[in-house]
């Protein structure tokens, strides 16, 4: 089957590139860490929180968290629309 062959070809190419990348990245020694060093050095005095991850999530990058809360709200909204209560005999219209 053509589709299966294309899928296997894509998979093999991706496997090669991913394994090459996995073997060539140096582990345990990140190259660019200026921002994180700044957070570790100054995060506690600027936010007062001992947990630097929390101070990033809720202070430095709080807009990110706001968007994430909105995503969670949207998911709940979507699930509640999908499983809304129907009257007896009411059905989906898909034709």
């Amino acid at each position, binding site marked *: 089957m053509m589709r299966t062959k294309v899928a296997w070809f894509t998979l093999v190419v991706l496997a090669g590139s991913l394994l090459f990348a996995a073997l060539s990245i140096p582990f345990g020694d990140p190259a660019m860490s200026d921002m994180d060093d700044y957070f570790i050095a100054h995060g*506690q005095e600027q936010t007062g929180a001992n947990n630097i991850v929390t101070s990033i999530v809720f*202070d430095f990058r*709080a807009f990110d968290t*706001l968007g994430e809360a909105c995503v969670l709200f949207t998911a709940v909204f979507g699930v509640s629309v999908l499983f809304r209560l129907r009257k007896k005999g009411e059905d989906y219209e898909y034709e």
Partner: protein
Amino acid sequence: MSDSLSKIIRTTADVMFLFITVFGFYIVLHGHLTPGGGFQGGAVIATGFILLIVAYKLEDFLGWFQKRTFQNCEMSGLVLFIGTALAAIPLGYLFFMNFLNGTGGLFGQAVPFGINPGFLNTAGTIPIMNIAVGIEVLGGLSIIILYMTTGIRSHEEGE
């Protein structure tokens, strides 16, 4: 699906629900001191509610907790989160400014910099936002599982 599970499981769920809830609120409240935070703690508390949903009949669970309770939990969490962020603007700061830190009031104790044993009354608005997000995630995850369980049941009763 409409039957509840055996008495052993129900009793275990009863006992474990208290500990799971207390542990979740501990994680939420100590989010600025120890590993954890609003999301993780809220997920732990939601796990307690999901344990009750699984162990008991759905009608029993809906007799104890209304769907509206969880919806209100989520709404109030989101409103508290955005309200805390917006409260900085009338006080003359920017959006999401940590205006309570170091003022000496609520959550405003000055923190000793560097390694310290951890004090609960620090970190300004971060604990408030932790609590807000914890309440929101609690309501959100519980209501997702509740709706999905309702969907399974209405599916099994047939169209």
